[in-house]
């Protein structure tokens, strides 16, 4: 595919090689316009007014949810809007986890998890007396089916795993792991923050019980994310937050709740953001998720081949399945390195990427991460490689 640079205002207004999509993607013009349409043409609340404008806003908002449901192969009722992947993953732990875990139960997680898919389970485990069990990672840092089997027991009640690692770019073999978990009667929570933006996703085929992702990593706005949950599971859960919109009937001594998804969504929702996310999904679907994935992986391969020709470079994930390169210039702290990139208008990420467990597993202080998306092309990769080469020469020359 041809990179879609002219569709992104930030790329036409300044010199920028943007390689930090794994943190947040850039926003295409049509998504910005869709959100402006809401604020310009029907900027009113949903589900409340009975006047025409509110009807239009509500219709748009409802369509947005349907678009998202269709995108992941779910039913309308199974799509809960949240503030992002983090709040969606917390919602699973704070509702399903808190309402189902007992002392002695086991929750399987991994060191590949983003902090927002391990800290909530740590906290719930402490409260309920459940135990966190870590899948031992393979030599290259992957979660393998064999390693998963070695920790799966009759006590396993919940399996919380990332679909794609935000640092290593590995795809977890969930098609095999999920049926094994279900045989033991466990439910599976999937962090899809790094998969939904980059590859075809079908929650029914995957048979995930819960699955979460964020708008801002897939050409959508910040402030919105999605929790998918199987309808029967969502129906069985007590909400986490109470207030306007989520109730059916309110009495002095209690109330009754709406059906899912509304019982999980109290208060005025992020309306423009929901429309923006739906528009982003239309945009990415128009390219095709298979195409997106192949494009990113081709750029990854080009980057990897180039990095191999530069001395003093360590790549931690040469076998990545997606468009994420995780590396260091030997002897140079990533924060020193990243300023060099910044001066050359190449944006990449230095640090622990909200995955301290993995950084500890790698036994390094921090790493550099470059991640590719639909607006990147081979020239971006070549610019990146050129800067890596010059950065390496510079730091070695001054004595690092």
């Amino acid at each position, binding site marked *: 595919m041809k990179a879609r640079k002219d569709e992104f205002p930030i790329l036409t207004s300044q010199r920028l090689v943007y390689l930090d999509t794994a943190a947040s993607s850039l926003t295409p013009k049509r998504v910005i316009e869709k959100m402006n349409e809401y604020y310009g043409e029907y900027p009113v609340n949903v589900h409340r007014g009975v006047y025409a404008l509110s009807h239009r806003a509500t219709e748009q908002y409802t369509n947005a949810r349907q678009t998202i449901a269709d995108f992941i192969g779910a039913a309308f009722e199974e799509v809960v809007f949240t503030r992002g992947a983090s709040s969606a993953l917390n919602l699973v732990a704070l509702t399903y986890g808190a309402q189902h875990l007992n002392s002695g139960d086991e929750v399987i997680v991994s060191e590949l998890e983003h902090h927002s898919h391990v800290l909530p389970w740590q906290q719930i485990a402490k409260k309920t007396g459940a135990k966190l069990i870590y899948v031992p990672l393979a030599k290259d840092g992957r979660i393998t089916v064999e390693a998963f089997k070695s920790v799966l027991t009759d006590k396993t009640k919940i399996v919380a795993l990332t679909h794609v690692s935000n640092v290593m770019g590995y795809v977890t073999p969930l098609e095999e792991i999920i049926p094994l978990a279900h045989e033991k009667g466990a439910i599976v929570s999937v962090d899809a923050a790094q998969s939904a933006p980059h590859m075809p996703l079908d929650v029914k085929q995957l048979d995930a019980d819960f699955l979460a992702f964020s708008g801002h990593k897939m050409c959508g706005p910040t402030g919105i994310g999605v929790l998918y949950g199987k309808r029967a599971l969502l129906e069985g859960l007590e909400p986490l937050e109470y207030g306007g919109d989520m109730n059916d009937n309110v009495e002095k001594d209690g109330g009754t709740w709406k059906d899912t998804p509304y019982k999980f969504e109290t208060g005025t929702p992020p309306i423009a953001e929901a429309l923006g996310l739906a528009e982003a999904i239309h945009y990415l679907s128009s390219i095709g998720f298979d195409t997106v994935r192949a494009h990113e992986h081709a750029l990854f391969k080009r980057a990897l081949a180039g990095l191999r020709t530069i001395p003093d470079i360590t790549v931690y994930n040469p076998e990545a399945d997606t468009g994420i390169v995780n590396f260091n210039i030997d002897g140079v*702290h*990533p*924060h*020193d390195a*990243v*300023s*060099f990139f*910044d*001066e*050359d208008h190449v944006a990449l990420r*230095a*640090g*622990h990427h909200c995955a301290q467990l993995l*950084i500890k597993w790698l036994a390094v*202080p*921090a790493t550099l991460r470059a991640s590719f998306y639909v607006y990147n092309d081979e020239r971006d990769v070549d610019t990146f490689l050129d800067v890596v080469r*010059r950065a390496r020469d*510079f730091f070695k020359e*001054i*004595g*690092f």
Partner: protein
Amino acid sequence: MHQLENLYRQIIMDHYKHPRNKGLKDDPTYQTRRIKNPSCGDDVTIQSKVVNGIVKDVRHDGSGCSICCSSASVLSQRMKDETVDDALALVDDYLTMIINKDKKLNEALDDALAYQGVRDFPARVKCATIAWKAFADTLKKG
């Protein structure tokens, strides 16, 4: 590129490669403060020993990028034998130098003037300031 070169060429590489006063003292007459920057992994501990209102010794330890580690070393040299009041004033001048372009530089910062280049790298301000902030905290404790 030039700006980064200027920044690193000066004092910074010397102190990064050959840190002065590194290693902590197991001595209760020292005040200790540790600051971490969780977003990048910088982790600095500063100790100061004050006798009769005079900074007699500054020690540092930790891990992080060159700006962070070297600035702790430069600090530890510069603050020796200053009064607590003068030391705190120098910290203020240092922080001002890094954050505010328009303010006049205090030449008394001496080697620490090398860090004025950090102004051109706003994303590195935290790296250059955590050791100095930790030091000020030790004086305020004591």
